[in-house]
């Protein structure tokens, strides 16, 4: 079982490594969107510091959605998805593997870029650390929930826009707790409560999302 999971993850990472252009798009999108905000709002340091956590988090949500459209689409097109669904393991395991791979490919780079973007917004060191920590707990939830959306919209015309409509409302709690944790550090009220709520959301998503993704895949493929 574990070997199947690891095989799914490895396969996706290998495929992503071969198509680096696709992969870099989402990362650059993340950088560009956050850099546009100071241009639109003005370079006032105090203002930038207050909006910084929210901007980085919203950009992370959007960057994540950008790459979700391809989560199952490529495998669906070349027929390998049907083969994977026929494997003698639970389809939820496949969905879990796909979500983990998506997080490794798209989530971890966000964690590495985020501190640099935080510095652009003048965030102090402790807030930067909390930003990375909140993204580390929050982005797996984005990949897990996003997997449901990707499975539901598989092969539909306009799937890319549709997925944002379906999934963004579900991302609201992650955004609130994630950006709230950084805000809490900035205002001195502490981040622990936000981070533990974010952790609870992650546990729930881990327990529920793979099963629903698996059901959605079966609905979309059959």
């Amino acid at each position, binding site marked *: 079982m574990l070997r199947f999971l690891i095989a799914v993850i490895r396969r996706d990472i290998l495929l992503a490594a071969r198509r680096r252009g696709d992969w870099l798009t989402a990362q650059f999108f993340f950088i560009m969107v956050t850099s546009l905000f100071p241009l639109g709002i003005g370079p006032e340091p105090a203002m930038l510091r207050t909006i910084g956590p929210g901007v980085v988090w919203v950009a992370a949500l959007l960057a994540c959605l950008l790459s979700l459209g391809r989560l199952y689409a490529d495998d669906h097109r070349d027929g390998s998805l049907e083969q994977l669904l026929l494997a003698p393991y639970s389809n939820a395991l496949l969905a879990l593997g796909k979500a983990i791979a998506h997080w490794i490919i798209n989530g971890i780079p966000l964690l590495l870029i985020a501190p640099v973007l935080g510095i652009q917004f003048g965030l102090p060191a402790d807030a930067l650390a909390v930003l990375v920590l909140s993204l580390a707990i929050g982005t797996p939830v984005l990949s897990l*929930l996003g997997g*449901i959306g990707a499975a*539901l*919209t598989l092969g*539909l*015309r*306009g*799937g890319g826009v*549709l997925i944002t*409509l*379906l*999934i*963004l*409302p*579900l991302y*609201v*709690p992650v955004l*609130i*707790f994630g950006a*709230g944790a950084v*805000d809490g550090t900035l205002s001195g*009220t502490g981040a622990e409560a936000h981070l533990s*709520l974010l952790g609870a*959301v992650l546990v*729930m998503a881990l327990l*529920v999302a793979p099963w*629903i993704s698996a*059901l*959605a895949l079966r*609905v*979309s493929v*059959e």
Partner: protein
Amino acid sequence: MNLYRYASPATFHPLAGRLVPWFAALAAALAAAGLYISFFVAPTDFQQGEGYRIIFIHVPAAWMSMFIYIVMAFWSAIGLAWNTRLSFVMARALAPTGAMFTFVALWTGALWGKPMWGAWWVWDARLTSSLILLFLYVGYMALQAAIDDPRRADRAGALLNLVGVINVPIIYFSVKWWNTLHQGASVSLTRAPSMAQTMLWGMLVMALAAWMYTIAVALVRARTLILERERQTEWARAVLKEEA
């Protein structure tokens, strides 16, 4: 009594057709009574003047917006568990009305907020979560509209609906939490003033009217959906011949 008989489209279609006028009439009568209470029985509020009368539609609309989503999830769950086509049709038929009530709740909330809070829109926990609920309805309807195959549309919509209903309490909690951190307690729309008794009655009657209206409208929509899907069958041909 055999409940399964009513789940068959051939029985449901004429039955629903006969029920619709009754529910519509009940809705109209209850709405008339509710409007009478809200404008002629309920006295002026000493704090909010006549402006508070908006709550006689705002609160029922907000209740309906949440109830309908939950009822949809109920039908979706039944559909997924027992594979009954009619349940999916019911869930689908309820969605536009749910979205309509959510919109009405937001609109009346804004019109209430302007004179009371001095702003059309306040990022209050209730208004914000209603807005997100509207997004959930829109997502559900967009997914249904994008899928041509009715079997897939039914199931995909039901799954999304269930994910949404798990999320609604989490969203509500998170928005409330965010709200208390950012601006402290705000004035609540449902804060019960001294004349609570008549007010509660007014809201209840209006909510019942909204229920009857929702049932009537959903039945009509479900009939049309079923006729469309079953057009190849004997009974659908007969219905089409009758209806000019």
